[in-house]
């Protein structure tokens, strides 16, 4: 049983490349393209990891992260951001995010972290 990962980003190709890499590494990726979709998917399925962009149209990643944590306090969420505002990073980390990674995400360290 491979580990399940939910990849969330409004950029389709970002989602596609990340999902492909993770699949190559033995993960079983689901994809979502918005915060709402991510929250909905998480309701359906229990994921070992949620890899989610912060800045998205509609519900942003941090809100989605909070809803997911509210639904499943044990959920492991890695947030990705093109921004590096320390306040957001600190707030997310203090609320239980595993890591906030700056884009472009260094895949080697990401994989080190999650595997």
């Amino acid at each position, binding site marked *: 049983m491979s580990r399940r990962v939910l990849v969330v980003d409004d950029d389709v190709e970002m989602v596609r490349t990340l999902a492909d890499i993770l699949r190559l590494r033995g993960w079983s990726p689901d994809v979502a393209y918005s915060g709402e979709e991510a929250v909905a998917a998480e309701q359906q399925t229990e994921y070992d990891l949620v890899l989610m962009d912060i800045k998205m149209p509609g519900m942003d990643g941090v809100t989605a992260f909070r809803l997911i944590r509210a639904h499943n306090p044990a959920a492991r969420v890695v947030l990705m951001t093109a921004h590096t505002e320390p306040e957001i990073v600190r707030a997310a980390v203090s609320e239980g995010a595993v890591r906030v990674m*700056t*884009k472009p995400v260094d895949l080697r360290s990401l994989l080190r972290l999650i595997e």
Partner: protein
Amino acid sequence: MPTPMAAPHPPEPVARIPIGLKLPLVAGMLVLAVALIMGFAAIVAVRQTLLSTSVGRQQQVAKLFAEVYGGAARIYTNQARTTADRPAVIRYASQPDPADRYQAIDALEFITGTAQDSQVIAVELLGSAGQQLLATGPFSAELARLHDAGAVPIPVHADSGALGPFRVIDGRVIYPVVARVGDGEPAARVVIWRRIAGTPETRRRVADLIGTSGTILSGNADGSVWADQARPVDGPSLADGVHDSVVTYHRAGIEGSLLGYPLAIPGTPWVLMVEFPRQTVLAPTAAFARDLTAIGLVGVALSLLVAWLLSGRLARPLRRLTAAAEVITRGGEPDRVLLRRSDELGVLGAAFDTMASGVRDSRQRLEEEVDARTTALNTTLTQLRDAQETLVRREKLATIGQLASSVGHELRNPLGVISNAAYYLELVVPDPQPVVVEYLGIIRKQVETSTKIINDLLDFSRVARADRHPLSLHSVVDAQLRELSVPPGITVEHDVPDTLPAVLADPVHVGQVMLNLVTNAVQAVGPAGGTVWLSATANGDGMARIEVRDSGPGVDPAMHDKIFEPLFTTKARGIGLGLAVSRSLVVANGGTLTSEPAECGGRFVLTLPMADRSP
């Protein structure tokens, strides 16, 4: 020398006639006017004097000749008396007997015959009824005409005679001398007709007395007949009587008026008049006027000369004052006018000098004031320009910051995708050809460079807020050097002892700055190879001092400050924010970052406050 203010044009010299000429002109005209008036008065006075002198002379001569004429008249009257007393005459008058006729005529001719008097032209005896009894003499045939010309007077007393008025017959002036004959009443009379005929002797005497221009006239008391020494002439009417005054009249053939002084001759019905042509009397006036004109001209010339000299003395100082005033107007400094005079012009000159000196002083004060104000203004301007530049730079940087932030964020996503794609290919291509590996490496490296540029941009655009903690420089430098991939041929040597006390700084910031400085140093050394040195010491003033040196070409001395300005770069690639970001990060951590001169290569000095600043 400040430019003088656009001076209002000094009034053009309106004096068409300069004062140096005007004064002599006025003086000359005045003198001329005075000379003319005085000359006129003098001439009038001279004329009057001449006229009154002439009158006096005429008076004297007239009296003299009146006596002479009066004396002659008495003699002629006596002659008539003597003739009338002859017995033959008396007898014939009482009884005109033809037998006595020749005796009576003899008696009548007695006087004329003995006296050989050529003035007697006829003698007649008139009866008591006035009828002619006898007549003799060359003019006896014409006696009727003489009687027609006027009545013959009858002497009042038997022993007296009478003279009749002049009458003119055939160009001769004739008068009767009458005496009574006997005692009868009405009386018979002897009339001796005489004519006026001056002798050369009398003319000479007259000329001696009054000159050749003067004439002695005799005439009837009413002026009806006038005669000179021989002939009748025109003369003034004396109908108003004879007064002690000169009469003025004209005579045909004589130019100008004549002045006559008439005087009654006592014992006769005649007047005597001494006459001069007015021109002759007044002749000296012309000579006097000529002399006077010459004197006047000399006087005017002299006064012109004097006035010219005086006005020169007046005009010269005025010209000097004017010239000095013009110098002041043009903004120059005039010499002192210094009029050595004690009059009003001297006072004016002194006042002018005082004023000029005042103008000079105030102009100098003004210039000093202007200089001071200009300096202050320039200082303010410079400050303003600096402030403006700072403002513009800040504004520019803020705009760049916003743009950079937005562009940077947007680029991070595609870079992420590229990076992911490359990584995926690395994973999926089994036993890749070396060139594929190389090209994937190129993609990864370029993504890293792009990421670095974007990070710099974002760092710069963000207000750096330091999260400062005590920090070991040794470990920070170690960590950064491990991450750094140093190209072959370049050695990085570092002397950052782990015994160095901790600094108080944001570890992320310090790491970023150290990475930036070392990366710059490595790039400065270049592919030719060289060395980069890192060293850190405690400065003793509570600061740690870190130096990053390299064996590269070094920094142009003029660029030590410039290289820290945003967007300034000497590299072919790069946007010139690295050092600017580094400095702002260091400053945010209470430190300094400078580029300093070195014996060779570049030398960057970074200071950071020690965590424990107590000595």
